[in-house]
């Protein structure tokens, strides 16, 4: 028998343990959901906006759908990759605060030189994780605070790159192709429905020429 009160307790505690120590992860997941909902609303807004001509809608609607789909994928790929990379820079000890560096030096992982700090020649960064060290509790608070900050900065930078640069470029390419294809199909339908005498006007001819896939309008 399901106990609603117990379920609610579990929900609260799961949120606390999953996202309390990891704010960047929450930002990524909620960000994706937010973009999805926003895109759905925008598609409806364009569809019902009678002041936007049909030809422009044919570009703007696929642009919005492309925007939403590309946003989700680039969020998971680009943002997660950048966030994970920054995360590993900290957990592997490559990037650190002075206190973490001192801790790594005291633990024999880093060696202090005149120029700064270095590791032994055979040290493998990809296998090392500060959290696995036996005396990790000594630096836990400082590490968590530093890592969360770096994670959120990396996540924000990743979001800017994916949502504000990669997505608009890709969605524009996708939407332009969709618009050309739809306009070409529409004109084809119009041609098929033409009554006798079959033929095309100069205007239609110019439109058809401009929509030719292969090259510029002057090259028909």
């Amino acid at each position, binding site marked *: 028998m399901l106990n609603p009160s117990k379920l609610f307790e579990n929900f609260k505690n799961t949120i*606390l343990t999953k996202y*309390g120590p990891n704010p960047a992860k929450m930002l990524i997941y*909620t960000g994706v959901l937010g973009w999805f909902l926003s895109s759905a609303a925008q598609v409806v807004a364009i569809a019902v906006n009678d002041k936007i001509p049909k030809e422009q809608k044919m570009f703007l609607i696929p642009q919005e759908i492309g925007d939403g789909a590309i946003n989700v994928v680039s969020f998971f790929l680009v943002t997660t990759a950048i966030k994970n990379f920054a995360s590993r820079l900290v957990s592997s000890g490559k990037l650190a605060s002075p206190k973490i560096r001192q801790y790594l030096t005291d633990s024999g992982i880093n060696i202090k030189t005149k120029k700064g700090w270095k590791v032994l020649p055979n040290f493998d960064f990809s296998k090392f994780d500060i959290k696995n060290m036996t005396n990790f509790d000594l630096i836990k608070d400082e590490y968590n605070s530093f890592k969360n900050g770096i994670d959120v900065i990396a996540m924000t930078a990743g979001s800017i790159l994916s949502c504000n640069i990669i997505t608009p470029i890709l969605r524009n390419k996708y939407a332009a*192709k969709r618009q050309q294809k739809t306009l070409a199909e529409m004109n084809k339908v119009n041609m098929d429905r033409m009554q006798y005498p079959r033929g095309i006007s100069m205007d239609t001819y110019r439109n058809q020429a401009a929509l030719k896939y292969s090259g510029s309008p002057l090259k028909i």
Partner: protein
Amino acid sequence: MASINSITSLSIPQVCENVSRKFTRAALNAAGSREKLPTISNPKVLGAVDWIGKKLSSAENRLILGASALLSQPFIDASNKDVDSETRRYSICRTIAKIIAGTATGYTIRKLCIKSIDAFTKSVNEIKPDMKFKKLRTLLTPTLKYTADELSQYKNTLGTILALGVMVFTNFLIDAPLTKALTNWFAKLGGNHNVKSE
């Protein structure tokens, strides 16, 4: 066969996570040198990193994304030579309108929802005698042990989840009509060049 099964049993987010993890491992081995490990020692930068990790919620994140979007997306649309000039003009107007409407409502709703969650996530010793609805003040407080920073992130997460629920409606009721009105206004400001023959 086993490998096919293992691929199909993964969800899209898991596949993306795996790809990014592999990328991370490769990038980590390639990045930087062993001889000079970067250490952030500037107190101001360290303070900023600490503050961002503890205080930056989804609301501020949305604001940063919106501001940076205004600096990049209209210019990307303006340089899109794959469409005619009229479509390009509408696209720029709508992009700016969408960013302004989305950021304004997104930021406000997230901020309000996080504040509302905060009002009902009090610890017992935070409840003052003159507070109203005392019993409800701990409604959302988790029962597990937590640190102040973890509780703050918990409130941000719950607030953001609530905001997403609210935005299901406001996206249609506020965002979309506001985007439409702003798009038409920007298009009018720039002069309506669209000549409809019919």
